[in-house]
């Protein structure tokens, strides 16, 4: 499916449109350029319905007071900021009808020294643009589907970012390299918002995480830290990894080594930034790395498309690329002093929000490992499930949990009934379109730890039936009958409303077969292919071993007051 993108600019931004259409990374785009130079008209008149828009303007074109500054005329701060505020308000209004709006921050469109040593005084261009950008960022931040992109990075990516001759010939102030970087950032943003951000870095160890081969040299002789060019580079790389892990990107190790010898480095080397506790999992052995990555995927219940594999050895990279094309395998520099910056340049981790669940991802995976271990110790699944002590906190959708809910809807593939992808405003619109729509979130915990908000169900009343619209459960919580609890909640809601039946229509994709398998074993009748029905005169059994800390009255689930919370 193509993502429609409207490129709106006061200059000739056709190159950005062309780059978006030519770029074959997912999601594929069908980009068009809005009428040239008619930014305010487009923002004011276009409905923008369901579209993604990318707005890239020159400050002097949309903020008249800033143009005065460039012409060295007297500048009035109050007017300048009023104009920025009005521009931001126009974007917010436009965004109300859009799926997603991306706005480029302002950078100087012409090369030049400005006022020289006075550039950072209040009349200087640099100072003024910085303040305008801050104000614009704050003003659009109130709209959940508007994001400011840092265009300074695009400019820095080019040896020749601007070319006056190009401007005079094409009316594009930036060269093709800058336009390409802009299109790449738009694609990265689309991936992030669409739940396609990568979640796990799988790392090689020898000569990737540290310098040297631990099995041959011993951990004491490895190059990490110290007064050593490459030693410092490996520390820098580890710091970059650690920063990502704090942002919710989990780290695993896959290495051809003896496990005990390799793990000793994490435990004993004083200069290591990453410690064993920073690893959510590892496969340290002499097996094929592609196979080890598949094992990790299974252990963590995480799809290959969520993984990035980093290895200094081009042969290993090639092997994983060939065997597991879903895994992102970036080209990796030979020079360790480039490792940190190469990692920081990867655009596969962009996300529109960072939730509590993201920040706790490594801990959750470690708990999952312990959970899996306990399963191998149990005599049967029936014995194991009650031993987990599963607790579920059921909450109606609200301001506190909507961001995580949207992230869950957009990221989940396997246990996802409709696989519909939505932005926050789009979901709120959907919820408020009809008074008898409702949505619940489920936060799951057990004796090993907190899995976070991992379940989401929404429904609507259709005549005398209750139709389940979203039925989403993170793979972290699958297979513990939390699914059955969700069905129980839906049936109870229908029963309290005296509805006739509960209907569930599965939109089958290549990746939600587990969802179909669940519904086929759920006890519902499959009245036609992938449509399941339950006679609501009958209760649906609730898993006895799951304690639900807080279940709202089922009647309240269809109460329009709840959805008003999100207006």
């Amino acid at each position, binding site marked *: 499916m193509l993502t429609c993108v409207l490129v709106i600019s006061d200059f000739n931004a*056709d*190159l950005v449109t062309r*780059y978006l259409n*030519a770029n074959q990374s997912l999601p594929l785009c069908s980009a068009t350029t809005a009428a040239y130079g008619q930014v305010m008209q487009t923002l004011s008149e276009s409905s923008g319905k369901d579209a993604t828009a990318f707005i890239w303007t020159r400050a002097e074109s949309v903020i008249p007071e800033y143009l005065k500054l460039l012409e060295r005329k007297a500048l009035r701060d109050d007017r300048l900021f009023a104009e920025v505020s009005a521009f931001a308000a126009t974007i917010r209004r436009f965004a109300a009808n859009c799926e997603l709006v991306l706005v480029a921050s302002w950078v100087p469109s012409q090369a030049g020294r400005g006022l020289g040593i006075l550039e950072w005084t209040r009349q200087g261009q640099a100072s003024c643009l910085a303040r305008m950008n801050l104000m614009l960022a704050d003003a659009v931040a109130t709209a959940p589907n508007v994001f400011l992109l840092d265009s300074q990075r695009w400019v820095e990516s080019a040896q*020749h970012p601007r070319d006056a001759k190009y401007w005079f*010939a*094409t009316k594009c102030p930036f*060269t093709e390299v800058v336009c*390409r970087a802009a299109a790449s950032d738009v694609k990265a943003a689309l991936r992030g918002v669409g739940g396609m951000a990568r979640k796990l870095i799988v790392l090689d160890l020898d000569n990737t995480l540290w310098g040297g081969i631990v099995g041959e040299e011993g951990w004491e002789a490895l190059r990490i830290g110290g007064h050593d060019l490459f030693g410092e580079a490996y520390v820098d790389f580890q710091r970059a990894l650690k920063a990502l892990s704090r942002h919710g990107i989990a780290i695993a190790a896959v290495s051809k080594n003896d496990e005990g010898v390799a793990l000793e480095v994490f435990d004993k080397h004083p200069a290591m930034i990453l410690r064993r506790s920073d690893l959510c999992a590892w496969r340290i052995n002499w097996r094929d790395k592609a196979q080890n990555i598949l094992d990790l995927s299974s252990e963590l219940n995480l799809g290959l498309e969520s993984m990035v594999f980093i290895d200094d050895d081009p042969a290993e990279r090639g092997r994983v690329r060939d065997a597991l094309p879903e895994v992102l395998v970036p080209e990796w520099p030979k020079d360790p002093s480039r490792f940190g910056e190469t990692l920081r340049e990867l655009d596969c981790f962009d996300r529109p929000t960072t939730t509590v669940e993201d920040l706790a991802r490594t801990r959750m995976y470690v708990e999952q490992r312990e959970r899996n271990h306990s399963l191998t110790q149990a005599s049967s699944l029936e014995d194991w499930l009650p031993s987990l002590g599963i607790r579920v906190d059921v909450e109606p959708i609200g301001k506190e949990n909507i961001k995580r809910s949207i992230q869950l809807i957009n990221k989940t593939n396997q246990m996802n009934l409709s696989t519909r992808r939505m932005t926050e405003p789009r979901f709120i619109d959907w919820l408020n379109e009809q008074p008898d729509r409702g949505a619940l979130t489920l936060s799951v915990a057990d004796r090993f730890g907190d899995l976070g908000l991992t379940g989401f169900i929404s429904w609507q009343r259709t005549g005398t039936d209750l139709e389940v619209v979203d039925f989403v459960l993170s793979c972290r919580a699958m297979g513990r009958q939390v699914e059955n609890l969700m069905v129980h909640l839906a049936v109870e809601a229908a029963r309290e409303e005296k509805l006739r039946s509960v209907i569930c229509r599965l939109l089958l994709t290549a990746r939600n077969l587990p969802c179909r398998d669940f519904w086929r074993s759920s006890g519902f009748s499959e009245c036609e292919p992938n449509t399941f029905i339950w006679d609501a005169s009958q209760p649906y059994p609730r898993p006895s071993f799951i304690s639900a800390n807080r279940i709202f009255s089922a009647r309240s689930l269809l109460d329009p007051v709840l959805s008003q919370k999100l207006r």
Partner: protein
Amino acid sequence: METGNQPEPVDLIDSNAASEVVAQAIESVNSFRSADNAVSSHPEVLLVGEGGCLDSMEMVTLVLAVERRILEITGRAISLLDGEDFESQLAAFHTPSSLANLIVEKCRC
């Protein structure tokens, strides 16, 4: 004023290097075309004029990418697009080969 022998013109860039610069510039253009619509850097492929494969935006991007690359390599700013009637200059931009010849000529001093 002394009117002795004129110095021999010196080529700052030879035709092979000029062809390489043109090929790199064509790659720049190809980066915003779909893969199945990529422009060949074969010396005789028609770039502009009747049957040419580049539109005006692509042509300007190509030529200015060449100008910038020449500046990087030789330190010399050349102007392939000099504001004169483009139509009259068209022959020089017809093919990668003719463009490379123009580069060598402009880089002669």
